[in-house]
């Protein structure tokens, strides 16, 4: 632990950390657009295709230089994107296969070049294989400055053209319709995504760079339904993962940075998948459970009311009889009985249940709403004016419409017969006269 803090005070580590934070930020931000434009796999192809570019840049320049590596990577990244585009356009091959072909051919070629370079004895070739899995510790100050500059430019451009990028991503033909040069913005965005990919290559590596681009964005999507928040959140997740990965990697010998960053990002993704409030698994499960419970309670009351209504003499029914009308699972049955008697809506004696006064009131309300809705569905068109295309709710109807609906209810013989005493006495609602 002490060693960790010592390392942290090392200016070089601080530089590297700063660089990877910015790198994570920009790849999270641009990854959001790549994800929403369904270009996640293209990002992967770009990253893999960058390897031959890096190797060729090394062969031409003669030694290691991040600047030329980025140029080489960007050029071969572009060629791969362009090839995918051409293959899809000119042949019957679909995009996924085209990506597969281009990715593997470029990457294979890159590996061949890398092996060739390593077998050659000339030149300083150390660190070239870091590009496969990434090694943040091998970044020097000038590299960090380059990476940070590009990141800042990318972030600035995204802020400036946020509105334009949003609309060309959501609805390109509409964007064109309002006079935006969509193709131009498309190209800028692609260039920016390529840049975000290539500046991360040395830190994250070609194999995992696509994950660096996409994982923060997917994780962020689970927390928000707003593009602006999603982008900011993705940036933060990217920066956090970048930072964590770099810290662990630089303080521990022999651990490549890329996989660590991706492990950090993926952990956040898994947490988001489970706990995210938007479509998170846990949230969905709890919602579903609540709904099941509520439906079970309502259905029990409905069934009990129906039984009461049919036999005006007896008010006691066996649990089995009630559950027979609307079947639910055993565990829910126990819950329903317990919950309803706790609320004082039913009274239970030796497996015989009856509605209490309070229970009758609640059940009456439920049944009335239920049957009014049924009636409404049968005559939906007649009420459309009033509803003005909203979801049905009795409160939206005017008095006149309500009366009409009650008359229809009576016409169909669906009027609830058992009116609770409290309603009779107080005439709480206008429509009670109608019934």
């Amino acid at each position, binding site marked *: 632990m002490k060693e960790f803090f010592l390392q942290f005070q090392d200016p070089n580590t601080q530089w590297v950390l700063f660089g990877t934070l910015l790198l994570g930020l920009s790849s999270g931000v641009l990854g959001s657009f790549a994800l*929403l434009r*369904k270009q996640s796999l293209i990002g992967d192809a770009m990253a893999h295709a960058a390897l031959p570019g890096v190797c060729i840049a090394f062969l031409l320049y003669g030694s290691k230089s991040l600047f030329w590596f980025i140029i080489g990577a960007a050029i071969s990244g572009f060629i791969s994107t362009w090839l995918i585009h051409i293959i899809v356009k000119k042949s019957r091959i679909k995009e996924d296969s085209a990506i597969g072909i281009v990715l593997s051919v470029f990457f294979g070629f890159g590996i061949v070049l890398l092996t060739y370079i390593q077998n050659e004895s000339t030149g300083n070739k150390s660190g070239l294989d870091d590009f496969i899995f990434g090694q943040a510790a091998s970044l020097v100050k000038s590299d960090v400055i380059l990476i940070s500059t590009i990141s800042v430019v990318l972030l600035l451009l995204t802020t*400036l*053209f946020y*509105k*334009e990028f*949003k*609309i060309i*991503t*959501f*609805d390109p*033909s*509409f*964007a*064109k*319709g*309002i*006079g*935006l040069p969509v193709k131009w913005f498309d190209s800028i965005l692609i260039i920016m995504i390529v840049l975000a990919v290539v500046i991360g290559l040395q830190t994250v590596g070609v194999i995992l760079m696509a994950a660096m681009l996409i994982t923060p964005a997917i994780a962020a*999507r689970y927390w*928000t*339904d*707003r*593009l602006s928040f*999603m982008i900011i959140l993705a940036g933060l997740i990217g920066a956090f993962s970048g930072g964590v990965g770099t810290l662990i990697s630089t303080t521990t010998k022999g651990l490549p940075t890329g996989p660590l960053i991706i492990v950090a990002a993926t952990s956040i993704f898994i947490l988001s998948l489970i706990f995210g409030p938007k479509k998170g698994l846990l949230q969905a499960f709890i919602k579903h459970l609540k709904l099941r419970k509520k439906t079970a309670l309502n259905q029990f009351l409905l069934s009990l009311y129906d039984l009461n209504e049919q036999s005006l003499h007896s008010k006691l029914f066996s649990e089995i009889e009630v559950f027979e009308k609307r079947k639910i699972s055993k565990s829910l049955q126990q819950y329903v009985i317990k919950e309803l008697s706790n609320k004082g809506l039913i009274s239970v004696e030796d497996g015989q249940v009856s509605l209490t006064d309070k229970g009758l009131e609640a059940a009456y309300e439920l049944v009335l709403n239920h049957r009014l809705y049924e009636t409404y569905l049968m005559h939906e*068109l007649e009420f*459309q004016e009033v*509803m*003005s*295309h*909203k979801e049905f709710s009795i409160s939206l109807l005017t008095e006149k419409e309500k009366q009409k609906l009650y008359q229809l209810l009576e016409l169909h013989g669906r009027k609830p017969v058992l009116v609770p005493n409290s309603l009779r006495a107080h005439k709480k609602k206008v429509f009670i006269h109608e019934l």
Partner: protein
Amino acid sequence: MAHPLSVENITVAYHKKPVLQEVSFSVPEGKLIGIIGPNGAGKSTLIKTILGLIPKASGSIEFFGDTYKKQIKRIGYVPQRGTVDWDFPTNALDVVTMGRYGHIGWMKRPKKEDIEIAKACLKKVGMLEYANRQISQLSGGQQQRVFLARALAQDADLYFMDEPFVGVDAATEKAIVTLLNELKERGKTVLVVHHDLQTVKEYFDWVLLLNMRVIAYGKTEEVFNLENLQKTYGGKLAFLEERPTLVKENRSV
């Protein structure tokens, strides 16, 4: 005054196969115009070509006697609902605000008044309560109305709508028709790709019967007749033939 839209001799071809042939027509101001034709007749293609979304092989198009680029702010477009990803992280109000983007200008953020306009447009289509709802949680009809509201927010004079009535509930259809008539009263011109023949007479002042070429174009009562429909639909139009005979039978009885 120049027509809101005049189209002259447009030809469009995909891979040598012609899709539209020598289409010419000009649109009078303040009318609702239905573009009618069978599947594959090139209705959507026509609209997209007019808006420059598809390259044309020949022909010229003028908007208010001017080029598209100069009049772009006066032109509104409602694409088919299926063309966008409704899972996109955005809400209804935000989508409608996009209609203002053409007026806002590059790199600037929407102002308060733009948001107010967007809200007013949502209200007009009866969707104000759904302003903050994520767009995937809207029903098909509601999504269509959001698209319409966005077009309203553009505040254009000439509108193009690509099949706004497809897959919507009766209520939305009614809402769209009300809106179309309101636009017309305000002197706007609206071209609508439509394929429900039953409602053509009710909804549109003018019709363009299209099947790769213009079959007939003019006022609905003059042009929308069985003969022209037969020409447009070829033999594919069984039910319209049956109707008059049914009437005859009834008379004879």
